[in-house]
């Protein structure tokens, strides 16, 4: 690499270098800030393009449960409910499993098992959503979810969540279970990083006091990394809320507000994906779907900002040399 500074006097070359570096700095800064700009632009565009419904109904969209696009009734409540129901159930299933995986990979497994298993769990996140959906509709829901649904229905059918008729293929339960699989890698990967960032001294102190390994994990490491684990949970939740294809394919597109997990339902992302084709040419209809997208954007934005701050806080508490 030829750096021909010798041709110039020191003063000249210094000047030239500073010039090049200044341009480079500005250029790289602008490119880097494009990501942040994109976030703002997305919010602005969705806000602008949803003005038809915002003018017509204010925020009534969120509070109404009537969905009849051709009768100009746009109530997103069934979809908001469906999104929350499936995502929260997915989280309840994925959290203990993901935490268990993180503990196993970070604390127990020998390095080569940890690497291999860690990679396989990460591959779960690589499988495209549409393939989860395909497998969900034709394999997972009929063979695995249906028997579970029937058992829940016969044992606890008096609870509204498990009431109604068991749908063989499409159900909110199937969507929630698939979501749980899909967010598992997020939760386990982030919490594994959190565990690995906890200083060795914490473990050694607990073990030296006579705690068993499990007591060390449950009573020292988990409390120590709690805010980071909470960050992992929120990142997982954010992923579940926005997940589209797999959910659209297995949830069955029922636009009524019903409680049962065993029946078909819909979510915010599923309604947008399922109806946008029809809606594109009708201003009010399209605007309603974009407004649902805006709500989704806003929720995931806030959750992500919060989660990142939490995870950063844990990472920053540990001196850099101690991190892996």
């Amino acid at each position: 690499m030829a750096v021909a500074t010798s041709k110039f006097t020191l003063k000249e070359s210094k000047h030239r270098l500073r010039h090049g570096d200044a341009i480079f700095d500005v250029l790289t800064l602008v490119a880097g800030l494009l990501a942040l700009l994109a976030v703002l632009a997305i919010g602005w565009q969705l806000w602008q393009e949803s003005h038809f419904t915002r003018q017509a109904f204010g925020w009534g969209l969120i509070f109404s449960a009537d969905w009849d696009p051709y009768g100009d009734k746009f109530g997103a409540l069934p979809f908001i409910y469906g999104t929350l129901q499936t995502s929260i159930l997915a989280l309840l299933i994925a959290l203990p499993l993901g935490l268990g995986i993180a503990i196993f990979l970070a604390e127990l497994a020998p390095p080569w098992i940890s690497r291999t298993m860690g990679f396989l769990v990460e591959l779960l996140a690589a499988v495209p959503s549409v393939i989860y959906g395909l497998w969900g509709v034709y394999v997972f829901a009929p063979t695995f979810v249906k028997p579970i649904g029937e058992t829940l229905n016969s044992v606890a059918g008096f609870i509204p969540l498990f009431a109604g008729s068991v749908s063989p293929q499409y159900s909110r339960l199937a969507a929630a279970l698939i979501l749980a699989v899909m967010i598992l890698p997020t939760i386990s990967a982030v919490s594994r990083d959190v565990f690995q960032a906890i200083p060795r001294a914490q473990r050694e102190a607990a073990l030296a006091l006579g705690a068993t390994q499990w007591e060390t994990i449950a009573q020292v490491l988990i409390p120590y990394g709690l805010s980071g684990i909470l960050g992992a949970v929120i990142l997982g939740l954010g992923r579940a809320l926005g997940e589209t294809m797999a959910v659209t394919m297995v949830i069955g597109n029922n636009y009524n507000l019903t409680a049962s997990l065993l029946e078909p339902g819909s979510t915010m992302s599923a309604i947008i994906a399922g109806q946008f084709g029809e809606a594109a040419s009708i201003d009010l209809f399209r605007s309603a779907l974009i407004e649902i997208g805006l709500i989704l954007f806003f929720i995931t934005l806030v959750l992500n900002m919060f989660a990142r701050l939490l995870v950063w806080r844990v990472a920053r508490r540990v001196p850099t040399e101690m991190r892996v």
Partner: protein
Amino acid sequence: MMLNPSLPKPGAPSLGMSSAHYARRKITNVIMLTLTGAATVLAIVPLIWITAYVTIQGSRFLNIEFFTQLPTPVGVPGGGVINAIVGTGIVVGVACLIAIPIAIVGAFYAADHPNTPLGLAIRFGTDVLSGIPSIVMGIFAYTIIVLPQKRFSAFSAGVALAIIMLPLILRTTEEMLKLVPRNLREGSLALGASNWRTSVQVLLPAALNGVVTGIMLAIARAAGEAAPMLFTAFGSTGLVTDLNESTATLPHTIYIYAMSPFKDWQEKAWAAALVLIALVLGLNILARALTWWRARQMGLNY
């Protein structure tokens, strides 16, 4: 720090503790630790189930025609999805052309100024952007390109995918630049090279392997995205190479075929799923192999 109240207090004679207590704590320990291992194995089950099932089902319907022919109308046997395979290639190609230069250039700043307010702003922006659902990216590309142009296009799909890829590539490139040993940078600066030359001609080549890995992972992610395609590429039954035309893509085709009531379409959905999963998992495994190879090299060199 308050441990389990059943633990002996410091100085208490350990003989005073019943052995049942110890036994219980030991058993709890073994059970819970086993459960964490079981959770890990359980997580692998869906991965094996999906890949095995897609491979078995897909390979039954996969043949040469599938890669070389256009789709036939419903009921007419044969035909393939070459339009979707080409479409995915075009759309991902456009996304790469947009995202890779911006991401790499931006990563220089983030790696150079890690703890300045602007550096943090970049990191924060990319982290937040990567958490925004892909369907929202699709709507965004729709509102800025499809609506004003009044037509669906491969280009708009490329833009949506580029926004998905940008934060992924930027963050891996940043991490890789930071991993380059300090003495390389210092050596270059000491020879009189300017900061930007050091970045472009010393740091980037040294980090290149890792950067390529990051790009491969981002491509794998983008190639599998179906949700943004609903609003942008939209789909087409013909072979399209014009960026301003709507085009079929592999994930979108899987969605349409899978949800159709026609048996032969559903069969093609499995075949297409096999192609897609092989592509995506293949890229992931290759990326991991590259990382491993680089780590070994570094281990030998330093």
